[in-house]
């Protein structure tokens, strides 16, 4: 499944620079230093954190996209950084668990 495909399932595009990226697995976490060492390449990463460090961690871990759950807003300056660094960010109005469950169903 590609990042673009999520748009048909209620996920919103907050910053989409490479929608053709393939999603392989999901990681969930908010403690950025923890995520940095554990999220795998091509994972979709679900979090409620939305500061600029999220873009850096997504870039380091090379995740396919960040998904901001719980309807968390993406600040404009962070969106600009994400765009410059080619980091996909989607939004979900569902809580973290429901977002993860939804993704699991879509990926299987």
């Amino acid at each position, binding site marked *: 499944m590609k990042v673009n495909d999520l748009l048909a399932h209620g996920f919103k595009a907050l910053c989409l620079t490479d929608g053709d990226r393939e999603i392989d697995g999901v990681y969930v976490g908010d403690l950025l*230093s923890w995520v940095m060492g554990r999220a795998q390449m091509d994972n979709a990463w679900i979090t409620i954190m939305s500061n600029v*460090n999220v873009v*850096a961690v997504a870039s380091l871990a090379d995740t396919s996209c960040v998904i901001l759950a719980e309807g968390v807003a993406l600040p404009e300056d962070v969106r600009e950084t994400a765009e410059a660094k080619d980091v996909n960010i989607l939004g979900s109005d569902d809580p973290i668990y429901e977002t993860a469950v939804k993704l699991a169903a879509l990926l299987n």
Partner: protein
Amino acid sequence: MKELSLNILDVAENSVKAGATLTQIIITEQDNLLTIEIVDDGCGMSEEVVRSVVDPFYTTRTTRKVGMGIPLLKLACEQTEGELSISSITQENDPVNHGTHVTATFHTDHIDFTPLGDVSASILTLIQGHPDTDFLFMHKKNGRVVKLDTRELREVLEDVPLNSYDVMEWIGEYLREQYEALS
């Protein structure tokens, strides 16, 4: 990071890399405010570099394009409504009094406060890895202080390396006893 002691280790490692001969690590706990200061006499940073180290996409390492030590510490501060500040004087600007001063403040009563963790372990790791540079460590709390100054140890030990097994054991015990008296 799950403990601030790991952030302290990270920032102090930067001080050593900057060629510091003395790195001071001072923790002060006063009411609900915790302050961590890391002060070194290393080569210092220009204003531009100081601005960029809080940027997660900056690093002095060449292996990756982002450096997360200072940005994550800043985040940990701001999550408790504290703040992080850095002042620095380059060796070029002042050949005598150069170095970097990092100050991080935290409100310990904030729900998102990251626990301090095992600071003694961080100090031991620093001495173990860099036995030829000096560290002054102080943890002030409730009018008491835990203190370790490797310059004083060096004077007594003369040629015995600070990272020899017996010395490390002794330092660990020395810190532990002082922490017992502190709590």
